[in-house]
Each structure stands twice: as C-alpha cells, then as structure tokens.
C-alpha cells in the first residue's frame, strides 16, 4: 500500500478537477429538467473521488462521499426527486467533500461532527425515495466469499459421487499429512459453459498450486465422443490434493473460485495430521515432501500473504516482490499527453526567457555599432537568434496560458447566490470560455469579475415584477464573454437591466462633493463617475455590493494589471462593462522612443502611426494644450518632456516626431517625442513592486544597454493631460530622475 501513496498527488489534483465538474453540473441541475448525462457526470465525479480515497485509506472522506454518492444514485435512478432544496444540499455536500479532501491532504482528521449536518440533510432526501441507505463505506467489505463447502443439494447429478471422496480418503490413508500442514481435497467440476465468461480453469488450478503442494488429477469421464464434442464447452473436471500450511484456510481456497462459484460444483474437504494438535508448532525436522502421483502437477508453493483487510499496512509479501521500475508513465492508448509541472519551474523559465530577451537586445545594440557590411554572417545569425527568442518566448508564454473558463466557471454559483439574496431571477450566459490568457491574468480576474457581476445583479437588474411591468422577461440576463482583440483580452459583462440612473448618479456625486454643483457632464462622463473612490448608488449598504469594495477598487485592480475598464449604459436597456487586459504580464512588444536623454517604451498595441507635423497642422488652444490635425481629426498633443520634466528635448513639433496613439476606447493622443528608436520586446518589471506607482507609467523595463526605461500607459497619459495644462512645466522632482536604475528586481 505504501507504494501507491505516490499517487496521492495525482489523486488530489484529479479530485480538484472532479469537484469542479460536480459543482458545474450541480449548478445546472434544475428541477423539472434533469439531464441524465449531467447527473451521470456528477455521480461519476463523486464516485471517482470515493474510489481513489478508499485506496489511500481516507475513511472519513470515503464514508461521506458514499452518502453523497447514494443520493446522486437516487437522482440517477429517479428515486430522489430534484428539488431546489436537494440541489442546495448537494452543492453544500460538494463543498464539504472539498473540505474533507483538504483535511485528507493535510493528513488531519476532520473535526468530529464535520459531516453530521450534511449527512443528515442528504439522508432526508433519501427517505422519501430510495428505501435503503447503504452502509457507510468506511470499512470496505471483502467480496462475498464463495459458498462454504459445496453442499450435497448442489451436487445434483451426483457427479462427484462418493467414489471420488473415497479415492481421496483412501489416498489420505496411504500418505499421512505432514505435521503442521493441512491436506485439502478439492473437487472442481465446472459447468460446460464456463469458458464463455472468460474464466480459465487452468489458471485456477495454478492459483491453487500457489497455496501449497498440489496434486492435480483430471477427470475425463464426462468427455463426449468426438462427434458430439463442442469445442467451446468444457467437459473436464478435476480433483486437487493440496498440502498447505495451516494458515491457508477455507476462505483462501474459496477465493480461487470466487468468480465461478455459481457456475461450478465445488467440494472442499480438509484433513489435519492425525496425531499432532492443530495448534502445535511444527517440529524442527522438515516435513518430508509428499510423493506426487502426477509429477507434472507438483509446483513449488509460492507463499501468499495472509488475507488483509483493505487499507491495512503494506503486506509482508509485498516487500518480497520485485520492485516495480517505472512509475506508470506509459499511457498507451490515451489521446492526450500532459504532464504536471510545478509552477515555480515555469515562472523560472519565464524569467530566464525574459533575461534572454534582454541579452539579445543588448547584443543587437552592440552589433549596430559594428562597421556595416563586414559581419554579414554574424548579422544573419543574430537575426535568427532574434527570431528564435521570439518563438521561445511565445512557447513559454503559452505554457502558462489558461482558458478563462477557470474563472468563468465560478460565476454560475455566484449568480445563483446573488439571485437568492436579492430575490431576483437571473440567467447567466457565458461565451468565449476557451479564450486563453496568462495564468497571472486569469487569477487576477476573479475579484473584479465577482464584484462586477454582483454589481450587475444588485444594481443593474430589476426584480421580476418590475421587469414584467416594463415588458421584459421576468428573468434578467447577465452575459459574460471573453475574446481576443488586437493582442489583448477583452472581457465584457452585459446586463439587460435598468441601466445607470444618471440623474441619481450625478446628484450623488454632487452630494459627495465629487462634482461641482451645476457642472455639465456628458452621459459618458456621468457613467464614469461610478469608478470614483467612495462612490456608491446603493441607498442602503446591501449584503452584496456594500462590502467596502466599490467600482474604484475594481478599476484599480484592472489598471494594476495593465488593463482598462469602460462602462456603456442605456437607460432602461442595460449596461455593459468592458475590460481590456494584456494577455500576459511578463513580456510586451514595445516601441522604444527617446525624449532628451530619456528612453520610453510605448506598447505596440497602442501605436497607430508616427508622423512629423507641418506647421499648418498645428493649432494652439488658448490656455490649453495644442492640438494637431491628423487624418482629418483633431488630436491633442502631449509633450512628454513637459509631462516628465526632461531637459534637452526637442520642443518644436515640426522638428520632433508625433507618435499617434490610441486607447482601448478609441480616443487618440499625439505624443511629442524626439525620435523613434525601434521596435523591441521588453520584459516587464513591475514598478509598483519595486518602486511605486506613477501616473502615466504602466511599468518599467531594462533595455539592451542596461538602462531602465519606463513603459508608458497611454490611457494614463490622457488622464494626466486632461487634468492639467500640458504646457505647465512639471516640478523638477520628476519620477524619471528619482528612479533608482539598478535596484530593479525581475518581476
């Protein structure tokens, strides 16, 4: 049994997956429309957890899983009706099963009475339908033993006859049983169709030989003549004389015929050595081996370990067996080949690839200074290196990619709970669950999504009566979707509720001093007020969204992931929240730009184009910033050197470059820079983790020459330029100057 403990990890991993399967299934379980595939899947999940748990001796877990399984079996057989209460009980049971797994994993016994309440609740559902509650599976019963001593009623044809017994008895007289041993006489006559069940008498005889010294005699008396012989039927029977140690008991012999007891006539008799008492220790002199009547039948006895109850310690015999070599690594016949890898290892790999990207950039930097035309092969080699580095990076990133379904799958439960608390009817629709994102992003999605869905149900959706009044279906719909869009993942949460109540939001904001009284705000601006810190439209702090977490926290979470959040609402029709996030938090495709002596990186996804404006394209707005006419549209100009207080930069846009950038919501900005140095993959180093958060800056990176460059956050720049006169110079204590370059640690 010790050997199997190596599979515990697999078991816990698999069980975690099975719990999710069961939960997802349970959440879809609706009274009245029971899908038998779904129910079967839940049953199997619980069943598998129980089965594996038994193998590791987790008796409490198994006992509980058994109760759970019994009810699922009732659901499967339509003896337990599916009601809302039942589903609630089953969901609780599934949670508890997870807890029991956690206890088992830690090796702790569950506190006394942990399962009592849930078991009682489960059994209540059974009492109506299924008549019997099966005994807990704590001590798995051994298979029912074959009938003890075939009785004479079974010997219908009298085939054994007294003759055979007489033969055995006669021989017993001739060959006395050695001391300390028992002689068994086993008469075994299978029914003719035994072979059709795949059973093979030869193997049973061989199994008997393993129990001791066996003499086998074959009886051919029932063999028909050749004309009547049917090859697939069995016409032979056997008498086996077995001299075995005293610890071989009737159960062990019956065990051999375990599968065929009902298809055979079996008679077993035992005989102890005449003089010695059965308990007497065997004499020191070795017993003389019994003379074998049929020489080919004598086989050295293979000692068999005494029977064990399952879950016992490793049997002694196990130690004598050859140690298995492989770990069961071959999975022939299975279509998917996967391995489980420690996340730390992958993170290390990601880090190393990041360092490699930097090194590669460094080499490229140096090579640029070589005299042109002389090192053609070196340059080609470096070109390839760059290509391979990129591919390596993508491969490594894809290892960490995970479908968002791991987050989405938690939401049905949340919706269910919210609906119950608010008394609303809610239908959750999800799409794009297979969209893959880096696992760090996926993990960080849980909290914002949880909050936003709660928010949609609590604030967005109307109650069923109100919905009916305005001609909507009683049940509101929340749609959660994910998709890849231009190198980012876009997640949308849409509800068909009442939409944002703008007058209320505005008056609330004025009341809280967030907006000046009498200010005129566009609809979009009003909608965005809900992201302001301390803002809440709930008249009363409800259980759901009033947990001290507002949309401002959601926005902060999203921004810290390098993402953005937008809200779009139509009164009476509903609201849509749009999250846009990077696919990975580790590496970014960027454009390196220079401003004075400083270098910045712009995410490639933000860049539309770069151009050198003519004087005629530029317009100054009095007391405000400059704008530029680009492609028939006025674009606000942002002077990076002013924003960050960098001396020595090109100030005249007609001599500098304007990089046209676009944010997720489509608004454009023209960044005035000295030069565009080139495209490069950069490894993102968190500024917050290593320094502190800076407005307009998403993160930092290390360039090929070892210099630290800030990665710009375009949306942040827009915010900055909106709230200040971009012509006003920044105070000298600019973040760039304050940044301690070498202190940066890898993300």
């Amino acid at each position: 049994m010790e050997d199997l403990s190596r599979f515990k990890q697999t078991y816990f991993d698999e069980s975690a997956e099975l719990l999710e399967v069961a939960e997802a299934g349970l959440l879809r379980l609706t009274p009245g429309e029971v899908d038998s595939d779904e129910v079967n899947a839940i049953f199997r999940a619980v069943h598998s957890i129980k089965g594996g748990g038994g193998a590791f001796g987790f008796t409490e877990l198994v006992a509980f899983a058994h109760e759970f399984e019994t009810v699922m079996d009732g659901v499967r057989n339509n003896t337990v009706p599916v009601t809302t209460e039942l589903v609630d009980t089953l969901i609780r049971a599934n949670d508890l099963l997870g807890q029991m797994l956690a206890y088992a994993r830690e090796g702790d016994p569950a506190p006394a009475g942990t399962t009592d309440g849930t078991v009682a609740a489960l059994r209540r559902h059974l009492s109506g339908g299924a008549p019997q509650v099966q005994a807990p599976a704590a001590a798995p019963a051994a298979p029912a033993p074959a009938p003890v001593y075939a009785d004479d009623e079974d010997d219908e044809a009298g085939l054994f006859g007294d003759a055979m017994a007489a033969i055995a008895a006669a021989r017993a007289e001739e060959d006395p049983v050695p001391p300390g041993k028992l002689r068994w006489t086993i008469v075994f006559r299978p029914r003719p169709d035994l072979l059709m069940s795949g059973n093979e008498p030869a193997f049973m005889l061989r199994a008997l030989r393993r129990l001791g010294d066996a003499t086998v005699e074959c009886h051919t008396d029932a063999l028909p003549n050749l004309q009547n012989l049917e090859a697939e039927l069995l016409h032979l029977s056997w008498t086996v004389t077995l001299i075995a140690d005293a610890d071989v008991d009737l159960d062990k012999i019956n065990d051999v015929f375990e599968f065929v007891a009902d298809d055979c006539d079996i008679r077993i008799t035992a005989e102890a050595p005449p003089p010695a008492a059965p308990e007497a220790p065997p004499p020191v002199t070795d017993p003389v081996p019994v003379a074998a009547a049929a020489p080919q039948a004598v086989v050295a006895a293979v000692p068999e370990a005494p029977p064990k109850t399952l879950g016992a310690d490793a049997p002694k015999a196990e130690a004598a067996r050859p140690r298995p070599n492989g770990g069961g690594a071959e999975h022939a016949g299975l279509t998917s080949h996967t391995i489980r890898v420690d996340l730390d290892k992958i993170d290390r790999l990601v880090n190393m690839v990041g360092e490699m990207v930097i090194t590669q950039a460094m080499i490229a930097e140096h090579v640029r200074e070589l005299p042109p035309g002389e090192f053609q092969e070196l340059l080609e080699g470096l070109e390839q290196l760059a290509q391979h580095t990129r591919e390596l990076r993508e491969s490594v990133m894809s290892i960490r990619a995970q479908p968002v379904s791991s987050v989405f799958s938690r939401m049905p439960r949340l919706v269910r709970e919210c609906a119950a608390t608010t008394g609303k009817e809610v239908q959750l629709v999800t799409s794009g669950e297979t969209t893959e994102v880096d696992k760090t992003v996926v993990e960080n999605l849980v909290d914002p999504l949880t909050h936003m869905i709660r928010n949609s149900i609590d604030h967005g959706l109307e109650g069923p009566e109100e919905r009916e009044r305005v001609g909507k279906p009683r049940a509101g719909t929340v749609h959660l979707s994910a998709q890849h869009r231009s190198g980012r993942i876009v997640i949308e949460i849409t509800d068909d509720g009442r939409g944002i109540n703008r007058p209320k939001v505005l008056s609330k904001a004025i009341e809280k001093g967030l907006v000046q009284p009498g200010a005129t705000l566009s609809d979009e601006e009003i909608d965005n007020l809900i992201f302001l810190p301390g803002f809440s439209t709930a008249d009363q702090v409800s259980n759901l969204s009033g947990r001290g977490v507002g949309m401002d926290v959601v926005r902060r979470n999203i921004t810290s992931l390098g993402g953005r959040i937008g809200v779009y609402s139509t009164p009476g029709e509903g609201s849509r929240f749009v999250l846009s996030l990077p696919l990975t938090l580790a590496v970014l495709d960027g454009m390196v730009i220079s401003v004075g002596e400083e270098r910045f990186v712009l995410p490639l996804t933000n860049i539309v184009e770069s151009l050198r404006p003519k004087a005629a394209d530029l317009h100054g707005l009095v007391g405000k910033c400059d704008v530029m006419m680009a492609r028939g549209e006025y674009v606000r100009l942002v002077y990076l050197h002013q924003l960050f207080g960098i001396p020595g930069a090109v100030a005249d846009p007609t001599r500098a470059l304007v990089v046209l950038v676009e944010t997720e919501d489509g608004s454009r900005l023209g960044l005035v820079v000295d030069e565009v140095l080139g495209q490069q993959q950069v490894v993102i180093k968190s500024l917050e983790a290593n320094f502190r958060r800076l407005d307009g800056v998403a993160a930092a990176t290390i360039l090929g020459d070892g210099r630290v460059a800030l990665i710009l956050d375009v949306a942040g720049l827009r915010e900055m330029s909106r709230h200040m006169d971009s012509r006003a110079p920044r105070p000298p204590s600019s973040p760039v100057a304050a940044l301690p370059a070498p202190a940066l640690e890898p993300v």
Partner: protein
Amino acid sequence: MEPSVKKKVLTVDDSRTMRDMVSFTLKGAGYDVVEAADGQQALGVIGANKVDLVITDLNMPVMDGLTLIRRLRATPAHRTLPILMLTTEADEKKKSEGRAVGATGWIVKPFNPEKLISVVQKVCG
C-alpha cells in the same frame, strides 16, 4: 511463475488516479499495461493491441463498462477474453449485471495491490 512472454492488460477507467495505480501495480508484477479512459477508447486500444486481460471500471463517460463488456463479448475474437470489472464494495447488483453480460470476474474497489495481482493471476495466469 512469471509468464515468459509478458501478458498485456488493458485498464479502463476514467479516473487517472485509478489507472495509474492499476498500471503501476501490474507493471510491478511483470505485466504489460495499456490504458483507456472509457469504453470507446478501450475498443480502439483493443483494436490496435492484442490484450490478454481487460480490467474495466463500470461508471465511465462516453461508454460505460457494461456496454464495453457486451460489445467485446459480441465479437467472436473476444468471446473468451478475460474481463474483470472494477466494482465498488457491496455492489452485488452490478456484479450480477456484469456476469449477465459476460464479465469474467470482479475486483473490489478500492483494491489492494496484492489482491489485484492475485485476481489477475487467477484469470490470466
């Protein structure tokens, strides 16, 4: 007593843990093991391998154990192939169902390694 030519056992179970454990135990006892995660896959594996014994779970997605046994027994080549069912304790109903469709015998889940090997030896040597 180990067979000179390794016998090949097909283990069919939707639980990876269970497949791993059966596989590990039998390999340790000198058997070749191939795996399948449900009855449908098992039929594929049997089509591509000559197996001497099938050990199948009963509850599986796609195709369950009883259906698998029925399908195998319906094929002349597998009329006498030993097929063991992995059943849960106290599952007498399943045992008799299994016997009715032609299962050779059963292994009680959870199994212990030595019991598994002795059962396997009993039906395929």
